[in-house]
């Protein structure tokens, strides 16, 4: 009897176990359904927020639209006057900053967006600062490498970048003399003059 009882209990336990195992997938389904519903709710919420961020624009007459744009243009010209100069030049960083700030401001002013996101503004300014810093570093490196490359060209006198474009400090000659024992302008004058005259002759020949 005890054996039967144990069997019964075992069968009960096994059946309950089966039920449990059967119940698990349903629970999973429920969780799937619940995740689906939450996803749907989330998407509905995001749609709502999208709609809220993009307010419906009522139809305007052409004249109203032009007046509005004129006012926005006047405002933007005053607000971004410093950035316009950068945008006009070849400075791509300045132009990019101008476009980003101006575009966002336009969206807000023309009721295409609700508000100007300050986080975006902070990001833009950080990017600009980093890019400016990188530009400055690269310029410094370029100028240093140009200086080192220009020296022999100036000595020979046939380089395309002459001394006339550079304005060195007055004490520069003394410093160079202390370091190298000679200066380019005074001590190598004769050799460079001879090379220059040779170069100018070549130039005149080329001109002929």
């Amino acid at each position, binding site marked *: 009897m005890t054996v039967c009882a144990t069997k019964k209990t075992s069968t009960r336990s096994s059946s309950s176990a089966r039920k449990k195992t059967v119940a698990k997938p349903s629970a999973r389904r429920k969780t799937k359904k619940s995740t689906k519903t939450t996803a749907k709710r989330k998407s509905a919420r995001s749609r709502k927020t999208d709609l809220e961020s993009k307010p419906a624009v009522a139809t305007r007459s052409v004249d109203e639209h032009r007046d509005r744009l004129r006012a926005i243009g006047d405002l933007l010209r005053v607000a971004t006057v410093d950035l316009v100069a950068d945008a006009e030049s070849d400075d*791509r960083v300045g132009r990019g900053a101008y476009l980003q700030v101006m575009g966002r401001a336009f969206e807000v002013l023309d009721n295409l967006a609700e508000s100007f996101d300050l986080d975006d503004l902070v990001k833009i300014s950080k990017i600009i600062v980093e890019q400016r810093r990188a530009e400055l570093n690269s310029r410094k490196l370029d100028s240093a490498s140009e200086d080192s490359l220009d020296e022999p060209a100036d000595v020979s006198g046939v380089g395309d970048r002459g001394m006339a474009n550079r304005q060195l400090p007055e004490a520069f000659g003394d410093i160079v003399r202390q370091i190298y024992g000679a200066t380019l302008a005074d001590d190598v004058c004769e050799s460079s003059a001879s090379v220059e005259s040779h170069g100018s002759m070549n130039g005149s020949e080329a001109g002929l």
Partner: protein
Amino acid sequence: MGNSRSARQIKLVRNEVLVALKMLYPAALQAEQLMRSLLSVFPTIEWDPFRRDLAYLCEKGYVQRVVSDNESDERFTPWRRRWFRLTSAGMEVADHVIDDPALDE
């Protein structure tokens, strides 16, 4: 609107693109911003015809593309994200200093 746009509608939209960019000159606008702004005047305007109009105005030399520094490869920037500004020729047409029969209302 699509292909069924009349010549008058086409001219109206193209003119308004020039006028909108003129009001913001020398600033530039993204194509999407420009279109969304024009939706308040032309509620039935669609993207593809608008893009064609913009391309037409660019080829005419009235509108020019401005490449932003954050465009890694300008060829792959989607049209909606491209920036456009008025050229001097476009300014003259928008001001009616120069007449263009293709844009006369």
